[in-house]
């Protein structure tokens, strides 16, 4: 199976004298998988996510995403890589309050140089798919948490990325909204989207993930595969 993520002996130290915050770690994520990362605070989940997203660089090892080694790319090349291959959804949504829902969703497409009409069409398609088309002209501040996370996911998917990174996507949501988002992720998985899911929520990981690793102090404490996605 084609690997979307390959980490080869990846380690990250924030303090050169101290122990690494992550790794050394070697793992790979197959295309179409939902890869969940769980663990307590400070276990290295966010560090792992940042390394895969190209937001941070490892101290040692190689990070290969979508067939490209990204830990040696310049900031400019990383930004281009990110907007073409990676979509991100965050715990606190990180939507731009100044922009309407449509503008938020189509922003990554516009950054790649996609024309306004084409970007709007893609945004419309995603809003319809995620059931938020009625909020197209609204500002994020007026939406519920669940709706905001749907907008964030739509924004993450607008460039049809090879990889969707979801960082605690239900962490800021009430139970009902959390279930909505869980269902959304499962739908995306069924549609073949590769997802890396960082979460505290073991139920969510169990529900969605085809593979789950549990990090403790930067190392994999457990690595489990699900039989099938429900």
């Amino acid at each position, binding site marked *: 199976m084609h690997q979307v993520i390959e980490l080869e002996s990846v380690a990250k130290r924030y303090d050169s004298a101290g122990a690494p915050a992550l790794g050394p770690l070697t793992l790979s994520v197959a295309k179409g998988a939902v890869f969940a990362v769980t663990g307590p605070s400070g276990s290295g989940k966010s560090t792992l996510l*940042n390394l895969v*997203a190209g*937001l*941070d660089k490892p101290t040692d090892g190689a990070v290969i995403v979508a067939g490209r080694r990204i830990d040696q790319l310049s*900031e*400019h090349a990383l*930004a*281009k890589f*990110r*907007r*073409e291959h990676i*979509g*991100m959804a*965050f715990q606190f949504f*990180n*939507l*731009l*309050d*100044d*922009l*309407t829902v449509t*503008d938020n969703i189509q*922003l*990554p497409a*516009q*950054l*790649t*140089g996609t024309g306004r009409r084409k970007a709007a069409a893609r945004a419309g398609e995603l809003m319809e798919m995620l059931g938020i088309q009625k909020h197209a002209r609204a*500002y994020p*501040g007026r939406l519920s948490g669940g709706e905001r996370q749907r907008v964030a996911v739509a*924004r*993450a998917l607008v*460039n049809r990325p090879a990889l969707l990174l979801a960082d605690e996507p239900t962490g800021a949501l009430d139970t009902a909204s959390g279930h909505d988002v869980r269902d959304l992720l499962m739908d995306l998985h069924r549609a073949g989207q590769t997802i890396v899911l960082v979460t505290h929520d073991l139920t969510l990981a169990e529900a969605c993930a085809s593979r789950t690793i549990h990090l403790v102090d930067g190392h994999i404490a457990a690595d489990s595969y699900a039989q099938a996605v429900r």
Partner: protein
Amino acid sequence: MSRFGTGALGRVVRSGVSRRRVQTVVIAMATMMAVASAVVAGSLMVAAAAPFDHAFGKQRGAHITAQFDPARASAAQLAETGKLAGVTASAGPYPSTAFRPVDQEGFRLPTLTLVGRSGPDGDVDRVDLKSGRWARKPGEIVLAASFEGPTIGIGATLKASDTLNAPTLSIVGFAVSAGKTADSWATPAQVDALASEGNPVTSQMLYRFDPASTKEQILADRKKLAASVGPAALLSTQSWLDTKRAADQGAAATVPFVMAFGMLGIVMSVIIVSSVISGAVGTSLRRISILKAIGFTPREVVRAYVAQALIPAGAGIALGVVLGNLLAVPLLSDSEAVYGTVSLSVAWWVDVTVPAAALVVVGLAALIPALRAGRLRTVEAIAVGRSPRTGRGQWAHRAMGRLPLPRPVTYGLATPFTHPGRTLAMLLAVAFGTVAATFAVGLTSSLTAVGTSQDPESRAPVTVTTTKLNNVAPPPPPPAGGSVASPSPAGGSVASPSEPEVADPAKVRSAIKSQAGTGSYYGRMRTEVAVAGISGSVQAGLYQGDSRSGSYEMISGHWITGKGQVVVPTRFLERTSTKIGDTVRVTYEKETANLRIVGESFDTSGSELEIHADMADFPSAEPSTFLVEVKSGVSADEYAQKVAAVVQPLGGDATTNAPSGQEGVILIMSAMAVLLTLMLVSVAGLGVLNSVVLDTRERIHDLGVCKAIGMSPRQTMSLVLASVTAIGVIGGLVGVPVGYALHGLVMPVMGRAAGTSLPSPVLDVYEPVQLLLLGLGGVVIAVLGALVPAGWAARARTATALRTE
């Protein structure tokens, strides 16, 4: 809250100052530049506003300088005049006479008033000895400082007159009398020795009166003097009001210019300092909320934040005062040289008032947002600190998003609408910077035009004279205020102990005419003429041939085109109440001609009235100088050498004209304009820098989001730069017309202060392209100010930015 003593408060303030290093540095820098420019502008305003008054007050100048006949008023009688009602101080009697010395080169100086004084001090007119020492014995002389020049220095000698056995005087010092009581000083014995039948010794008395501020008061005081010694004993008097008027005429031109820059500097300083400080406090709401949550009282919060602003601002103010003094002193000393008055230094009260005012501005600017923060309920403060979004500017994002520009650019263009107050402060900073730049460019262009028009003869590449050139140059500079007659003009009217050989003008003209390479030429002489209705003599330039190439700039009318015409300066028209088209009667030696005024010339030569007429109106007049244009491709140097070879044996000479240098006042004003503009533009740039730093800090999370979803560093930079571009464009659009209007307002006022109207080449100095570039200057100021924070934003680590609240 008692448990937070000064220690806790002090720690909060110190940590606030040190943690926000950029903000601290920007506050210090902006305050420093603002205070420095205010000190420079303020001290120049003070100095330019009253240089004569400063010097006169410091020297305890004489309100009335009186000359008495010693045969009719004894020393004892004159001493008694010092006790008259209204006299607050007196000095004298000093023996006084007039003489016309000749320098070592044989050049005759103008007639000088010589006063015998044993020293420069006294109750009245404490003469300022600028260099050297006072005359101690006969044979020594101290000259007015304005005469100092290449051939007239300390140790040089003067002959008392052009007679063969005239005594020699050694120059031992140079001095300045603000009240112009004399042009030279010697020992009393020397004055007695130099007196002659034509210039007998008189007794000079110097008086200070109270009151003496109006012409009427001076006249009344004069009457008292005359009555006390008898009218025949009082030979003449000189009022300080006349001296002041003449002295102020030179300095007055700089006043409107300095005032304009001073006002710009002060207003800008207030705007920038206010916006920097209030912005700094306004963006600290989250920190303030935390302080309140852990128990700081509102009063402590207010004190902490005012102190946090005052510490860097205080450092900036102190540095600004030092910098302002360092910058102002050389400008003031240059001004001193031009004004010819006593030393000008930064007024002490400027050094006190400016920093005090700056502290008040800083304090108020910090207090208002700090009070607001102090009054906020803790829960509200936390909410405000966490979520600064107000919904403002969303319409702008919608509108800009439709523009056919890259998304980061349209996003940046909408940003200013989120913070209208901050945007307005930035806009004002850019606009003021552009006003300063536009005004300065116009001013320096105008001053250059004035400098060029002052010396129309220098336009001719070759000058041919009827005398040897070493006999005609260099004359000493006239004293400031023009109270002393100019030295003998160059050319034929120069007289020296051994009369120089003067070439026949006809032969010189013939030599020019027959010389290959001659393009065009005209003859000229400067002389004195009498004009009906004007007492005393008037300078006149008489021209032979087509003199259009050497014409003055015309304010109105046209240059002389033939006989019967005269061109006069503005002051002539005012003084004679004439206008173009009127006829004036002009007498040169014994020849009188009725001449029609055909033009008003632009003449900045001070209080002189120089008129211009055709030599053909006065048959006995002959040119002393020929100004020659050479044909295209002919070397002026070679041409001058060839002509010199022909005319030198006749007694004449030829030389090329170096482009005339600009006069001191013009150079100083240009230097001031450049310096003040650089300072104001820097302050404007710092204002923008500060606002963009605040904005970037506030938006760093959003920028992190943008970067996380794929915005490249270059796109991030373009977003931040685009956020100030519109401000730069609008600032330029506002600033250029205002600067243009300011120039149009100030230049005529400067001209009027110098006693002249201004011609269009001096007023209409802006080219359309220049204005366009100046408009773009607003964008340059804005972009330069935003460049550093834009770089920070582009380099900011995305993961860190995303964690920032």
